[in-house]
Every structure is written in C-alpha cells, then in structure tokens.
C-alpha cells in the first residue's frame, strides 16, 4: 500500500492491523517475560526498541563465524566481515530511498552524527553573525551542538516556535529563515509531541535562501518510509537501536559533494590515504569519516533489523502505528485527569504519546506502571527547552511500535485508572 492511503485515516476509522502483530510479537524473545509479576508491556520505544530474534542471531553469527577487522585484511574472515559491514551500508542507502553508498556514514548514534556535522561542516561554514535555525521541539542532540557552535562562532541561534497544538508555527518562516541563515536543523518527528514536521517545506525554504538543511530523523526513520532525496535534506541522521537494531550504531546521510568538502571528524587509521610525518591526505568517502575500527558487529546485525522492517514494509509500519496511536489517544482522552501533549490528528503524528495526570507526578506514574509490568518513560525526554515552552516540568511518555497492539494500550489505560485509586486522588 502507498503511504498516501494511510494519510487519509480519520480518527473515526479503525481497521485491523495491516500485518499480524501477534506474529511480530513472537519474534521478540524479550517480550515473553513477566516484569513485577505481570506480562511485560513495553511502551518505551521512542527511547529504544527491542530486537527481533534475527538481529540477536546476526550478532551471534557474526562473532561465531565472521569476526575480524574490516578493510585491508588479507584473509577470508576479514573479507567476510568487510562484505557484511559494507552490505549494511548499501542496505541503509536503499532504505532511505536510494542514496549513494558513500553518502552513508556510520557513527555511534544520532548524537554523534549531528556532532560530526557541527564539528566539521559547522566549523568551516559558520562565522560571526551567521544564523542557525532550530525549532522549539528539538531533542538536546539536535540542540546542544548548535547552541555551542553558535556560542563559539558568535553566530545567532534562532528558533521556529510551536503552536499550542504542538505543530511548528511556520507563519513567520520567512522572517526566521533569512538570507543570513546558514543552517536549518529540524527534527523530522518530535520525540515528545509525536509531531511529524513538514520538513520538505522547511528544507525548501532553507535552500531558497542558500542555507543547508539537517533533518534529525531519529524518531521518523523507524516509523515511516523515508526518502532523503525527496525531502531534499543535505544531512539526515538516525539511530539503529530505535529501529530494531543494536545500540552503538548511528547513520549520517550526507550529500556527496558536501561530505567531500568537509574536513574529517576524527583522526586515525582508515580515514587516511597517505600519511607522512609532515602531511596527511584523506581517504575517500565514506572512510574519511570512519576513523579507527568501527562498531562492526552491530553494523552487521543492523542489516537484519532493516530486513525485518523491509519485510513488513514501512508503509504498513506507519499505518499500524497511526491506527494504534489513534486508538491510544481516544482511550486516554476518556480519562478526564489525563492531558495529552502534541497534535490530535493521527495522520500528523507518530506514536510517541506524552501525557500528564492532573494529580500524579510523571515519576510516580512511571513507577506505578512499572509495578504493573508496563514500561514507559518519565521526565523531560532530553528536551528541556520544549518542556519550558509546554509549561511542564516533566511528562510521562508511552511510545508505540510494531509489536504493540490494542491489548497493550488497554493495559496502560486500566493501570492509569488503578493508579488514581492507589494514590487516592
């Protein structure tokens, strides 16, 4: 099915999941356990997702049969490891809608990917008086590097505000993104509000004034079909562990001509072509940005995660989450003490649902839910400036993925009702 079909979903529609969630659930061994004497309900997917058996097996398989350092090794295992590592790179290049393999840089995560851009592209291209534009809903990963860069370069950090409904307020976009703007860094999907931002439009505006656009896709790439070329983003970043893959792997997609211009990020082995005591030349892309021995095993196993998502189909992943988010929002809205942050429309948001209770603090909510075997997150979700804008010190957040279904949402809602009885509020 095309993603367009899913976008027509009205909040009154509810259709069966586009794939067997029960079968998917069975592929995740960790879900088959009791936590605090209750069957585990894992709703902390915006923080990190669980791993299917195929990913766990790929890690084992790699260490059992292929483990070796990659590139330059003149033996069979080194060749096997190199092929597997580079195979994931090609897979990622296809997964994001088709980019060149050398436009895919492996990092330790989204945070490092954005830091890389700030430290290399930013270092060279941002000067005094230049403007960097971010939004009020950025995760600290797409905020702190720009705050610090602006500070060190005496550049100006500007922000796109949010509306009370949790959308970006683009009404004054032409006054925010101006001729002085050198970079626009925007989240594709908010980790707090769930908002899916109109990044294509924002990137177009950035390009119209000659600025570069970075899109933080950490919350989007796991949940919807991505086409980096179509979005027009110059840089696109995401993390493997939020999309069924291992921890310690992130991706930076960059336009080739820009990556070629940029200075390297870390210095050492693999990123060089020729080294003398007095001068060094850099290796070709993508190796210029992958100094030292990378996280080979986890990159190799990430391939299995991408295969798992391919087999379901990202449009179906999106449709399922849209339907389940709609169901969850409706159920939660029936509880009068619960306030949900972010857009109400299921086609304009993902499955990260932040909420507060009128009387119970988010940390007490999380502790209580944990006692019922339900894993959610509570706190500021690495978005303190956004929390201030929302006027909240913290929220609880339930975030959905492919192995969640209505029964998980029902357990959450029942527990929230019981919680209020427990605290006597």
């Amino acid at each position, binding site marked *: 099915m095309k993603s367009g079909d899913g976008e027509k979903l009205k909040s009154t529609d509810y259709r069966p999941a586009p794939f067997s969630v029960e079968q998917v659930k069975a592929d995740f061994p960790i879900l088959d356990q009791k936590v*605090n004497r209750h069957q585990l309900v894992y709703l902390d997917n915006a923080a990190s997702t669980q791993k299917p058996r195929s990913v766990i097996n790929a890690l084992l398989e790699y260490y059992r049969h292929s483990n070796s350092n990659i590139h330059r090794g003149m033996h069979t295992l080194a060749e096997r490891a190199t092929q597997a590592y580079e195979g994931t790179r090609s897979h990622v290049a296809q997964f994001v809608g088709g980019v060149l393999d050398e436009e895919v840089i492996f990092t330790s995560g989204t945070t490092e990917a954005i830091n890389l851009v700030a430290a290399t592209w930013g270092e060279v291209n941002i000067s005094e008086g230049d403007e960097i534009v971010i939004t009020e809903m950025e995760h600290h990963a797409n905020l702190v590097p720009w705050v610090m860069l602006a500070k060190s370069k005496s550049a100006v950090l500007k922000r796109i505000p949010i509306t009370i409904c949790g959308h970006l307020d683009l009404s004054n976009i032409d006054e925010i993104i101006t001729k002085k703007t050198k970079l626009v860094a925007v989240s594709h999907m908010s980790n707090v509000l769930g908002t899916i931002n109109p990044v294509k439009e924002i990137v177009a505006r950035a390009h119209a004034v000659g600025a570069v656009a970075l899109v933080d896709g950490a919350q989007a790439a796991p949940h919807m079909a991505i086409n980096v070329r179509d979005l027009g983003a110059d840089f696109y970043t995401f993390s493997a562990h939020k999309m069924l893959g291992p921890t310690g792997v992130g991706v930076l997609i960059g336009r080739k001509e820009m990556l070629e211009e940029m200075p390297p990020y870390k210095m050492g082995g693999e990123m060089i072509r020729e080294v003398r005591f007095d001068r060094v030349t850099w290796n070709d892309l993508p190796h210029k940005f992958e100094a030292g021995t990378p996280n080979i095993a986890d990159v190799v196993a990430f391939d299995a995660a991408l295969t798992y998502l391919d087999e379901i189909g990202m449009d179906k992943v999106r449709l399922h989450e849209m339907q389940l988010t709609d169901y969850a929002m409706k159920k939660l809205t029936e509880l009068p003490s619960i306030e949900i942050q972010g857009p109400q429309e299921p086609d304009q948001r993902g499955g990260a649902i932040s909420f507060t209770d009128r009387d119970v603090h988010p940390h007490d909510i999380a502790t*209580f839910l944990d*006692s019922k075997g339900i894993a959610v997150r509570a*706190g500021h979700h690495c978005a303190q400036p956004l929390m201030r804008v929302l006027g909240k010190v913290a929220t609880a957040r339930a975030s959905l993925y492919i192995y969640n279904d209505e029964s998980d949402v029902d357990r959450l809602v029942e527990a929230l009702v019981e919680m209020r009885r427990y605290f006597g509020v």
Partner: protein
Amino acid sequence: MNDQLDDMYREIILDHYRSPRGKQPVDKADISSEGMNPACGDEIDMQVEIDEESVKKISVNCRGCAISVASGSMLAEMVKGKSLEEVARLAEVVRKMLKGEGDEIPEEFGDLDALKGVRNFPVRVKCALLSWITLLDGLTRYKKGEGLRSSAISTEDK
C-alpha cells in the same frame, strides 16, 4: 514488587503527599533555601524562622512527585521546635538512611521509617533527599553567615 511499591508508597507517605504540612509562611525568614532537581523537575522552597538557635517555624513548599512532597512535609513536621544542632543531626540521619549507610532512626522520629521503602527504588532516592539536603545547605549557609545561594541545590549530582 507490589509489596515493594506499597513499601515505598506507604499510607503515611501518601497521607503527607495528599495534605502536605508546613505550607504556612514564616513571619521572618532567617534561612531561605531552594532545592531543585532539573531532571525530575522537583522544586522546593524552604524558609526557617529561628528563635534562640531553634526552629521556631518552618515553611516548606514542594512541587514534585509524591516522594519529594511527602519527605518535605515530614521534614516540616519534625524539625519544628528543635534546636539547630538537633535538626542538623536529624538531617544527617535521614541522609545516611536513604543512602543505605545507616539504619538508626531516633525513636521520636519513627515516622521517618516510612521513607526506608524508597531505598528499593534507587532512582527515587534523590526525590526523598531533596528537602533534607536543602535544609542542611540552608543551615550551613546560615552558620557561615552566607545568604541565598545563586542557584538551587540539587540531589541529582552523584
């Protein structure tokens, strides 16, 4: 776990949470102290009125989770009328108990025993500690003749 949960959210804790004590303002704030845990969002304002080196009145305003509110409320109830020396000793006893460094609670402060359940939830210890550390900090600054600190004290640091 439910036993552990009940052990943390004991009835006495929930009672203090629902109706916190010590909300009345003091007439004269000899000590003003602020505590804040930015990661949690818990905030506390504390004022102490001192008469002959004893706590004449204490005002505790805490915005946060059940544990931090209840702990602050118990504090307000317990330190009133105590000498500054006793208060400092008590705060130290609570700190040690929550950190798992000691178990002894003076008999007259038996209610503090209710805070022991928090130790099973390591991430929540800082919530219970906040009001006590805020008080200790205020006392120390008072003794040294220092005014309000420039930024609120926190229990989130290691």
